[in-house]
């Protein structure tokens, strides 16, 4: 019974982890059709922001929840103004540009932060679940991810700003002719996406080793999740993170982590074969 609860909790934690690293990409790729190959490096910089801020004596929650998203969001704004805005509608070109950006950021981080692993300890400690011991911090991440997705959905679905953002993404010319300042909407959306990646990096810093090359470990899974999710940013990523994590964690439990990754990828391939436009291309169509 305890073991079942433990397993269930682990599945939820895995879903939260995948949903967290995918959200920033979902906003940037899902809404703006910009293939952001520097997504992993945004996460990496978020991690470094938390490590350095905490090292300078900032409270760890403020470092993770405020400083990381602000720092990476600001970088996102600069990147959008300097590079991305010239490339809207040119999906392949954004891929090339952001890949270059990714290499540049890895190089800069290596030069200035050094090629070594850093990190902070996880706060809060652990609690006992019967005979087992579980980390509090992972449960906090679970709650934060739920709140983030709920807030994202509410923002896009029920606010005037969300409506304008969705309209701009669907038909930029029409939205502009109706008086929406589309450059501002694009810039804001990219900044928000980058900030979400930074937040993910900050929250992961206590669980992972922060190192300039860490992005590579996340970017592929994030892309698979977002593409499997389909057109709807929040609902799609949420559902696909859930499906893929259940398959991946289940296989890891029954076999080993390699089989877990294989199962996750196989599930994504099967899903995309059956639903070529992603899960939300068929069901929950039209939800943000």
């Amino acid at each position, binding site marked *: 019974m305890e073991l079942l609860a433990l397993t269930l909790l682990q599945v939820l934690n895995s879903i939260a982890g995948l949903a967290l690293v995918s959200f920033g990409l979902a906003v940037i790729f899902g809404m703006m059709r910009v293939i952001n190959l520097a997504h992993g490096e945004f996460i990496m910089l978020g991690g470094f922001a938390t490590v350095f801020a905490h090292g300078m004596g900032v409270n760890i929650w403020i470092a993770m929840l405020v400083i990381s998203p602000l720092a990476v969001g600001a970088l996102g704004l600069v990147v959008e103004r300097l590079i991305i805005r010239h490339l809207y509608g040119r999906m392949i070109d954004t891929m090339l540009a952001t890949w270059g950006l990714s290499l540049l950021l890895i190089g800069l981080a290596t030069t200035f932060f050094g*090629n070594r692993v850093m990190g902070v300890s996880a706060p809060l400690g652990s609690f006992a679940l019967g005979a087992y011991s579980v980390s509090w911090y*992972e449960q906090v991440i679970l709650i934060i991810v739920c709140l983030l997705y709920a807030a994202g959905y509410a923002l896009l679905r029920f606010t005037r700003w969300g409506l304008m953002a969705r309209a701009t993404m669907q038909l930029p010319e029409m939205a502009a002719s109706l008086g929406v300042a589309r450059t501002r909407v694009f810039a804001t959306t990219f900044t928000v996406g980058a900030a979400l990646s930074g937040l993910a990096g900050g929250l992961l810093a206590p669980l992972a080793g922060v*190192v300039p090359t860490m992005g590579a470990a996340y970017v592929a899974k994030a892309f698979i999740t977002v593409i499997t999710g389909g057109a709807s940013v929040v609902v799609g990523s949420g559902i696909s993170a859930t499906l893929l994590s259940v398959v991946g964690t289940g296989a890891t439990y029954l076999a080993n982590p390699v089989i877990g990754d294989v199962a996750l990828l196989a599930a994504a391939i099967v899903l995309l074969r059956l639903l070529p436009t992603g899960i939300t291309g068929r069901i929950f169509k039209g939800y943000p």
Partner: protein
Amino acid sequence: MTLNRRTFLQSTAATLAFPVAARHAFAADPIKIAGILDQSGGLDIYGQPMLACLELAVDDLNAAGGLLGRPVQLVKYDPQSNVQYYTQFATEAAVKEKVAAVFGNTTSAAREAMRPLLRRYQTPYFSPALYEGGVCDRNAFLTGSTPAQTIERLMPYALQHSGKKVYVIAADYNYGQISADWIKKYTRSSGGEVIATEFFPLDVTDFGTTIKKIQAAKPDLVVTVLVGGNHMSFYRQWAAAGMLGKIPMASTCFGVGNEHKVLRPAECEGILTAYGYMQELKTPENADFLNRLSAKFGDKTPYVNEMAAATWYAAMHWANGVKAAKTTDRMAVIKALEAGSVVNGPGGKSTLDAATHHCRMDVHLGQVKGGAFDVIQSFPQQPPSDTAAVCDLIKRPNENRQYVITAN
């Protein structure tokens, strides 16, 4: 100045002739050796301290008057954590610089890229990195530890202080898999049992599922063979789950990547390891070694682990060979080393084994305490019994391969 064909040819001929003339003019031109060690890229954390120790070894040799009355000169190459550059630089060192010996490699992949090349170019090769064992090549000398040397001492102690049920988590490539085999063998011979072994690709960062599986399996001891920055997440997540200290941990490679310096004491306190060298060793030789190192590098003095110390040993073994052979000629040096070479250094005594070209070395058992190793016990002259089981260069001197050693 006008440059016509005649003056060009004259000056070129003069330039080309100069080194030949110079070689005869100065009897004490240096003996060149090459250090090919990663100074940048993902593996520089291993390569930088290794090069520092090689530079110190060259200083030590020159301070003692050089070799054969000639100074030793180190030619440094940075392969940038890229195996391609290893082959390129090994070729350059052997063919262009005509070095007397090549020192280097961090990973086994880099070693196996350089080793056949240097054999073909007839340049003695010294590999100082601890690795999975099995290299059998008369042109190569290996001064790092192999699994049998360290795990044979680690497992009995760890089992005695924890219990009999062992859970192994290891990196998913040859080093991790072969080490896992040896852990199983020595667990069994110590009266224990490996209840599960899990392998992780090097890009895995999420160990949540595994940590819960370990808890469900209730082992008495967890043995880690985890490698690299991503795998360091395990220790962090293990501590976050409140497991540190609840189940004891031992490792065959914790600390070589300076894990105990990166992680906080609360994340790795108490982990047991065994190596041929630990900076915390309290011997006069080690104190002297560390003093010389900090005199040379000042506040840039690196933290020295086994791989770095083994690089110093490698240079000293080579110097022994040159001194005994009274020449830098390849076969003479190899034969002199096979006749016996002993180096007393910071980690204790290292004795070259003629049959395997590996080293018998003193192995030290340590436990992480406050971000450093607390040396518990030292075992003198551990033989490389894994490689010795398959490789005999006295009987078969022409062998040139790396055996895959199966422990069981």
